[in-house]
């Protein structure tokens, strides 16, 4: 056989999983991210007493497709003096970083996207941080004063909160003892409880840090419209902008996955080791079947035949999926699929809940001003995260010396909380006495 062909075949044989998963990620994740955008718009509308996209497709379900088509057929505008190569490269870097970091995430016990790396969390964090490069390059390549200012501000914010988030993750890693994703979830199974209950302060810090890291409200000043500087995305239009945008939403999914893995038990069902709750294993199929039943109930209330038909279609789809979830229980040969399938369901449910909290906060809270944002990150979150790492470390030390794990962790959490309260109150008193009308030079000036 031709040696080159042979080499290629061997290569494919060794790496076919990773290659397919790469293709799958690039094909599926942008679509999913597009639908996350639709979910956000519908949720926003619901919280604002309106309906959201309704025109394109039934209840606006084809809206992301329409948006993608529109963005693809837009004129490609590049600013005059812009560096063309970097201008092209920047959104690509941003998107690539977000998609690549998805490769190490695992949805289920043997359900890794690409491969279960032994440094899984580190890989995800590191690669998703490469996305910051895309932001700076994008701002610089636009050759606009306001773009570079916005890019620098955005990057400053991301770096600061990445530090705090990283320190919070360390607390979780201390509890699990390993960096690999499946190892962390296995540790939570071993402890019989999600890490959010063992290290709540770390989970909260990571929540705040991840909101800031993905440039979501209340930390979205660099990309807010009413801000004078429209941010690094100003000069990008059409599909280039779409790449940035999808990269941001893919980042949200990544960050949600990290939080779920570390703090929410990954693919474990609630109470994974409590045997009398084993009936919870039927919940995925049951929940989806119930959604199908609700769809049938609503089908009767639709005013128009088309909508009734649509509701029936949704119900049938739900029942089909529920059947897929339920079938392995009845077909013996498929029983090996159960942990993976159910695990994927729980994982996706938790990631969705996390992203729901993101969206909820966006629609409720006003925006932080940039200096308040940086003040929060550096003066409050990072000291708190450092103290929290110490606290969890001390708890682990106490545990290895015989103290009950729960007692140790509760004590150290209380200490951290007291520190947090004192820190916040001290800062409040400091900002009250400082006058805002001072003309001192601002270190965040562009």
């Amino acid at each position, binding site marked *: 056989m031709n040696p080159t062909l042979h080499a290629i075949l061997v290569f494919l044989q060794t790496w076919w999983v990773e290659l397919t998963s790469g293709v799958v990620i690039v094909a599926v994740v942008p679509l999913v991210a597009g639908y996350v955008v639709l979910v956000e718009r519908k949720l926003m509308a619901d919280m604002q*007493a309106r309906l959201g996209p309704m025109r394109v497709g039934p209840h606006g379900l084809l809206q992301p497709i329409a948006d993608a088509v529109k963005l693809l057929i837009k004129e490609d505008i590049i600013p005059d003096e812009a560096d063309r190569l970097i201008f092209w490269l920047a959104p690509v870097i941003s998107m690539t970083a977000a998609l690549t970091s998805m490769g190490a995430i695992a949805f289920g016990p043997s359900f890794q996207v690409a491969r279960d790396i032994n440094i899984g969390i580190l890989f995800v964090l590191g690669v998703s941080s490469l996305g910051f490069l895309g932001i700076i390059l994008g701002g610089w390549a636009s050759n606009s004063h306001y773009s570079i200012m916005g890019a620098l501000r955005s990057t400053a914010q991301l770096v600061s909160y990445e530090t705090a988030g990283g320190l919070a993750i360390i607390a979780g890693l201390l509890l699990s003892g390993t960096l690999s994703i499946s190892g962390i979830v296995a540790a939570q199974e071993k402890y019989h409880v999600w890490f959010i209950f063992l290290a709540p302060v770390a989970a909260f810090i990571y929540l705040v840090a991840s909101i800031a890291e993905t440039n979501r409200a209340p930390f979205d000043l660099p990309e807010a419209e009413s801000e*004078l500087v429209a941010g690094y995305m100003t000069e990008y239009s059409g599909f280039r902008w779409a790449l940035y945008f999808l990269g941001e939403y893919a980042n949200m999914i990544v960050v949600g996955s990290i939080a779920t893995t570390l703090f929410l038990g990954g693919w474990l069902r609630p109470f994974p080791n409590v045997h009398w709750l084993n009936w919870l294993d039927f919940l995925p199929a049951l929940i989806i079947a119930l959604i199908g039943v609700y769809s049938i109930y609503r089908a009767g209330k639709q005013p128009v035949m088309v909508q009734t038909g649509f509701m029936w279609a949704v119900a049938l789809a739900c029942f089909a999926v529920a059947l897929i979830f339920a079938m392995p229980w009845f077909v013996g040969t498929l029983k090996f699929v159960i942990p993976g399938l159910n695990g994927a369901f729980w994982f996706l449910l938790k990631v969705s809940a996390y992203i729901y909290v993101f969206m909820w906060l966006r629609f409720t*809270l*006003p925006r932080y001003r940039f200096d308040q944002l940086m003040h929060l990150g550096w003066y409050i979150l990072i000291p708190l995260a450092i103290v929290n790492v110490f606290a969890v470390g001390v708890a682990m030390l106490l545990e290895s010396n015989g103290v009950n794990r729960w007692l140790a962790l509760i004590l150290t959490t209380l200490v951290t909380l007291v520190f947090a309260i004192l820190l916040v109150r001290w800062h409040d008193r400091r900002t009250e006495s400082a006058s*805002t*009308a001072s003309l001192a030079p*601002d270190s965040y*000036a562009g």
Partner: protein
Amino acid sequence: MQDDALQDNSTLLGADELILNMGPQHPSTHGVLRVKLKLDGERVRGTECVIGYLHRGVEKIAENRTYQQVAPYVDRMDYVAAISNGLGYCEAVEKLLNVEAPPRARVIRTILTELQRIASHLVWLGTHALDIGALTPLFYCMREREEILKIFEKYCGARLTTHAFRIGGLQYEAYDGFEKEVERFCLDFERRIQEYVDLLTGNSIWIGRTRNVGVLNAADCIALGASGPILRAAGVKWDLRKAQPYAAYDQYKFEIPVGTNGDTYDRYMVRIEEMRQSRLICLQAIEKIPEGAIMGKVGKVIKPPAGEVYHSIEAPKGILGYYIVSDASTQPYRVRIRPPSFINLQALDKMVRGHLVADVVAIIGTLDIVLGEVDR
């Protein structure tokens, strides 16, 4: 006075200052307003407002129209609160004619004006919150305002530029069910105000964005002529509806909300409380609307005796005054409109000094300006 900062180029580090231009097209300037900011890094050293993009020459037009024909023009100044503008103008001409609107007309005018005050403050609250980043209050406010506009539409056929009042009284009788609908709105509104308060008032991000931002103390307010909620937030307990009552305001009991610091947060609290008080006025008014005529003794041709009159009312934005000079003909000789937003906008320079660029948007929002009124 305000140009001194713009002339002085020296900064702490000796660098040149940056002039940043906001508008006239800008999502947060609430109309066509151009603000030139002189920045030292991120701090604002001074501003210069360029206005006049919406100047339509109402005062000149009014000299070529009869008194009744001027009335629709004044709606279009502060188009967010058209009924207040109409009230001020009609009362000013009635003063010129020495005619009083009958009691029934005065009470219905009061109800509509107070509903309009609530609607104007709802627009202000929604857009101000949106500028600061809270996306949701806008839609809640618009939902409430929709109810008020439905009442206006049933009363006079228009939602925005209503031309609801006539010189001497009203043209339209209150429709069947007017009292019921106003009452239903007012009873429901308290719960809604609580929604906005829950979302914003105790929120530490909101407080951080509005406390000590754009402070204007009482002396500066009076010196600069700023009136309305700006003056009250600075601590001056003064409201033209109580000081020199017009329409039917002397019959109703209401409080004047006052702030302490004169910052953006106080102005927010004052306007929220004003909405509550307007609601109370409406509830008191609809309990007893007197029967009788709705139009006073005014002929078809309005020819006031020569002379002049100045009449001002407490519009939602501040003191709205009309100075009308008559030369005993059917057309006014001079109509001067004292626009609250024009005079309040002068205070922007003083309020913005020393703040960050991100605060400028919040401060422009808290002034509650409508460019139609600033430019006329």
